[in-house]
């Protein structure tokens, strides 16, 4: 059974683990809103609608038969719901994005953000504690000092490993609109945060000040027709970043050119195909995610129906376009009516930029092998949840002639959407988030 793979060998994707409740009653707070591997792939962070962050750690196992598993490493409440008294609006605690900082010392750091506030969290391990006090009893009560006859210096002894998460910085009050992206610069000092109309540049150490580098808010809000949907720093060039818009354009900006990067250096836009024009053309052209390739030569954008790969040197059109679920093109009115057309799917690259992945409906997700020009549709479901069970490729039938094992478009469950996926930076390990479950798949180890 062929899968999409990096390199010349076919990868067979197998179920590894699934995290989360089996219960069909999904609590709103448990809805996963972001998934991110750290730079080594050892840690996997998820954020949810309830403002919590759960970090899994890969256990290093010596067994050659199976890959290591991910187990819970730390859990903490990152953001709390707030109430804006002036506007009478709730500020959601939902974690919109998590980004890991490159590791500098024993501790791990990540940025997590909700609509309004970004926080820098330090996750550190403690595996020793001082023992041997002779001033206290076991339960902490102080001993009567008159009974103490000897001087004893406490010594550090090993203890059960404890993982602590503590907020180190809170970057607040810089965004009037909802934050949709954060991206850490390759200079290891700064990062950007983007909301619907503005992008700010922060220093990781300084919380009371940020620089506004992009502002597309019109003087007259009546003239507003476009918003920022995603932004990311270039992986190697610390002066370069891109941001995508609701009109399907991507702008590349160079911070060396000017302090305020309202004027782009490059504008990436594909002319619309007139034969596909409909009332919903603009809505489906809105870009929901933009990601640079690891090598920094390409970037990938996700709009409602497709994934596009752009060469940074060519602005006129993408170099590759992959249809994620073209069978939905005739269903746009229904999807507009039930609001699915506004769903924001993310996308990701594999470690060597040869395969890209994105989610779809019915708990399907798609992988496109750029080199071998092959694609596959897989499903994250309980049915495929036996250990090491190879995932069977799925197929959606667009017309009436449904073959065996195919699923017709009308049978798709549009409540089950995979919006967030992540790929291990080196290995063929992927994390796929359904509404409230996290699936981990790995390639078959022989």
């Amino acid at each position, binding site marked *: 059974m062929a899968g999409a793979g990096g390199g010349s060998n076919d990868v067979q994707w197998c179920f590894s683990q699934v995290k989360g409740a089996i219960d069909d009653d*999904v609590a709103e707070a448990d809805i996963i809103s972001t998934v991110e591997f750290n730079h080594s792939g050892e840690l996997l962070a998820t954020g949810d609608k309830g403002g919590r962050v759960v970090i899994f750690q890969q256990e290093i196992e010596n067994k050659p038969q199976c890959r290591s598993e991910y187990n819970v490493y730390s859990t903490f409440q990152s953001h709390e719901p707030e109430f804006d008294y002036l506007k009478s609006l709730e500020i959601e605690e939902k974690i919109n994005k998590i980004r890991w900082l490159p590791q500098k010392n024993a501790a791990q750091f990540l940025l997590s953000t909700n609509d309004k506030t970004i926080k820098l969290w330090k996750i550190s391990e403690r595996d020793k504690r001082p023992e041997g006090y002779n001033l206290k009893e076991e339960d902490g009560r102080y001993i009567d000092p008159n009974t103490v006859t000897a001087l004893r210096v406490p010594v550090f002894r090993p203890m059960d490993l404890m993982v602590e998460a503590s907020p180190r910085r809170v970057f607040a*009050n810089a965004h009037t609109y909802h934050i949709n992206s954060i991206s850490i610069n390759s200079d290891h000092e700064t990062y950007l945060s983007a909301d619907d109309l503005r992008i700010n540049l922060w220093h990781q150490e300084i919380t009371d000040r940020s620089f506004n580098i992009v502002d597309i808010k019109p003087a007259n809000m*009546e003239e507003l027709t476009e918003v920022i949907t995603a932004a990311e720093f270039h992986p190697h060039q610390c002066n370069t970043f891109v941001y995508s818009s609701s009109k399907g354009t991507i702008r590349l900006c160079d911070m060396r050119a000017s302090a305020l990067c309202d004027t782009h250096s490059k504008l990436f836009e594909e002319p619309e195909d007139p034969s596909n024009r409909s009332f919903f053309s603009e809505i489906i052209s809105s870009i929901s995610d933009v990601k640079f390739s690891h090598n920094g030569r390409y970037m990938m954008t996700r709009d409602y129906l497709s994934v596009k790969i752009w060469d940074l040197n060519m602005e006129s059109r993408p170099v590759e376009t992959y249809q994620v679920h073209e069978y939905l093109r005739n269903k746009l009115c229904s999807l507009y009516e039930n609001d699915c057309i506004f769903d924001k799917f993310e996308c990701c690259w594999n470690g060597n930029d040869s395969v890209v992945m994105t989610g779809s409906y019915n708990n399907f997700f798609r992988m496109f092998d750029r080199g071998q020009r092959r694609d596959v549709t897989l499903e994250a479901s309980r049915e495929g949840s036996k250990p090491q069970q190879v995932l069977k490729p799925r197929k959606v039938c667009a017309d009436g002639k449904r073959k065996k094992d195919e699923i017709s478009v009308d049978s*798709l469950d549009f409540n089950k959407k995979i919006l967030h996926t992540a790929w291990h930076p080196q290995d063929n390990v992927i994390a796929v988030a359904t509404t409230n479950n996290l699936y981990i798949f790995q390639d078959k180890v022989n």
Partner: protein
Amino acid sequence: MGQRDIVSYETSVRRKSRIRTASTMCRLDVDCAVKGPEQHGNALPSSRYMVGRGVKRKLNDCEDQMLDLPYPQQRQLVLDLCLDKLQSCQRRAEPSLHRSVLLANTLRQIQQEMRQEGGLHLESPPPAPATPRHSPDLPPVPSDRPSTPVAALSSSLLCEDDNDAQSTCTELPKGTGSEDGGKSQDLLFGSFEITNSTSYLTDLQLDDIFEDIDTSMYDPSDFSVLACPPPRGSSGASLGNDYNLKAFSTSSSTLQMCLNDLDHIMEILVRS
């Protein structure tokens, strides 16, 4: 490896209709025991989010029906949906500027098309309400041309660089005036700003805040058929909404429907 202490936490307070699950351990730690297919005997476990228990949300037949309609009716359907969604935007607990901008753009595109087509496609043009609002500078307006409140709302919401719309706007003496239209646009998009109560004094968007103070020039009794808009956050259908929905389904005159809907929206926008 040693045991892990899972940092226990309590999730946040109960707020309105959003009930939190207080849990003392990470809910993703439930490493589900692998179950065979026989355990899922009855049905695929389906997410209940947004849909009642046991109901799998499928595509309805909207699209099939829609494609059978002639183009103007398709367009009207989309227009109606657009207006519906824009209205509900105001009531949502989590307003999205992105969504509103996309809806407004779609609305503007449709209205632009309708305006361009003018009197060409209407089956039964309604009598244009007799108003003193037309500027003598405007080109002669056929009786079935979209009436000024439509134009006013579209231009105020979307602020086109359209001479006709501009001049129409400036002539409106009261009611759905361009000022209110402009304010309603700002109200629509201005309400997405998150201000912090400690920083608002230094926040330059002070004007947006004060636009909540309604200095509407028109007489609310003009809209006596419409109930007060529902309080923010409530999901109950108001009389106005019922009226609106009935208008959608029963009126055979597309433009008269637009007129009523848009007046209703103006009322809601200015009052909120």
